[in-house]
């Protein structure tokens, strides 16, 4: 893939991100942060590409360590966010 195209995607995605989240009610600040934090675990794709392809033992260890950290970020991030949002939802239902 050409470098220019990658940078093009990067700039567009930044603009999209800014447009996407302009106004967030304050009760969602924590879930938004923790939910986007889980998305930043997308580096797991990079870790998977790096894992098991290393030049030597250290390369493999680095890749696997990256994979473990990224997986904790993804799994933990989504579960924690879900737990938090479940509390918010519960209240909405109670009131109705």
């Amino acid at each position, binding site marked *: 893939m050409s470098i220019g195209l*990658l940078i093009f*995607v*990067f700039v567009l*995605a930044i603009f999209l*991100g*800014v447009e*996407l*989240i302009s106004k*967030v*009610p*304050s*009760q*969602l*600040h*924590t*879930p938004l*942060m923790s*939910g*986007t934090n*889980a*998305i*930043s*675990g*997308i*580096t*797991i*794709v*990079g*870790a*998977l*590409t*790096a*894992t*098991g*392809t*290393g*030049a030597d033992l*250290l*390369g493999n260890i*680095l*890749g*696997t360590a*990256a*994979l473990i*950290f*990224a*997986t904790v*970020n*993804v*799994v*933990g991030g*989504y579960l*924690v966010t879900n737990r*938090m*949002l479940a509390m*918010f939802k*519960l*209240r*909405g239902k109670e*009131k109705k």
Partner: protein
Amino acid sequence: MTDYSQTLIDLGYIVASILFIVGIKMLGRPERARRGNLVSALGMLIAIVAVLFECCIDFTWVISGLVIGSLIGLIAARTVKMTSMPQMVALLNGFGGIASFLVGWENYHSQPDSTLFVRVAVLLAVLIGGVAFSGSLVAYGKLAGKISGRPILIGGHRWLTIGILAALMICSALLIYFPPGPLLYVVFVLFMALSLALGVFGVIPIGGADMPVVIALLNSYSGLAACAAGFIILNNVLIVAGSLVGASGLILTGIMCKAMNRSLGNVLFSGFKAVSSTAATTTVQGEPKSITPEDAYYILEAARSVVIVPGYGMAVAQAQHAVRELGEILENNGAEVRYAIHPVAGRMPGHMNVLLAEANVLYEQLAEMDDVNPIMETVDVCIVIGANDVVNPAAREIESSPIYGMPVINADKARTVLILKRSMAAGFAGVENPLFVKENSRMLFGDAKATVQQLVAEFKES
């Protein structure tokens, strides 16, 4: 691999990117937030399945990594207490950063003959990922109370930071211009160490009350680090997802800064000034009026409208359940009860909302600062629980105050203000609070949870 299957894999990445975009959009709306999180989790799953088709020669490393990581994540997410949520989010954020850091290192280690573009991306992933990791660990330590929440200043801190930045620039110039070799590997290791040091020295001088800004900013960094990792492996899904997170983190950082009426630069570097400015602060004249829970009961018993302002002290005392009980009793007593939440109350964005949600406080009772300030004059009693700077009238009245200009909840305009506080100690950065000595203020000293429970007991006895 045929072109056909590569197209399918790319389609998988596109679908994943779309699901992330939709998921983030839904996360910003209360009624759809939970589904939004699931949508983005589905996107993540698709991205992982797609990459498994094109990566991975040796699956033993892959499977063991995925299993170990999932188990740790699962157990941590299940067992963490809601009161520990700020440090949990900080820690997970740090893990994302270190993962990108390691992806960069692995690439440099295993593919030393990469192009100039990839080498720049490696340096960015290591730098941003390293700062996100070590910065998040320091933030974790501060939030978990393992290191002091006050700004920590080391002699010559500013020069040390400038020195680290200069060394980073020299190292990166060397690493970009010269092809990798054994000697340059040493420079690379130094670059990694300096990146980690930068995160530590960047966060350690920032006080606990500014943590909402720092956490939001570090969140943004871990996204940008993932983005840099995307440039290393030339993968669009990392770039899209990473920059979405980077942008949303920056917006949240902006919201937090605005809520404190401070610039980002001021938050990041004011630790340098905090020490000198405290000495110049004038002491507030007057004596605070301390009362017993029994006196407070009579005040609350007669109140028809009550506004509760929670702060970090409520989180420390873990008083949210007791507070909700008090709120219910007051409602049954015929009072209208609202909770006024300042955007930067607590230690992370939305901290108070999460705690009160855990205690089952009704969503409709939570009011934002701008909604509650206009009606403050009609409120009989305002109960301030472990909050200080966010209700400080000096921000409106005293121009020389360090927090002058910060939007605050006008607790002092209520007919009576009950302040639950451990002691008369000043809040963050030693700013005196004239609210405590105002004519209509009454102090209830002691642990917030114990005091609220005493109030609840007074109501039950009568």
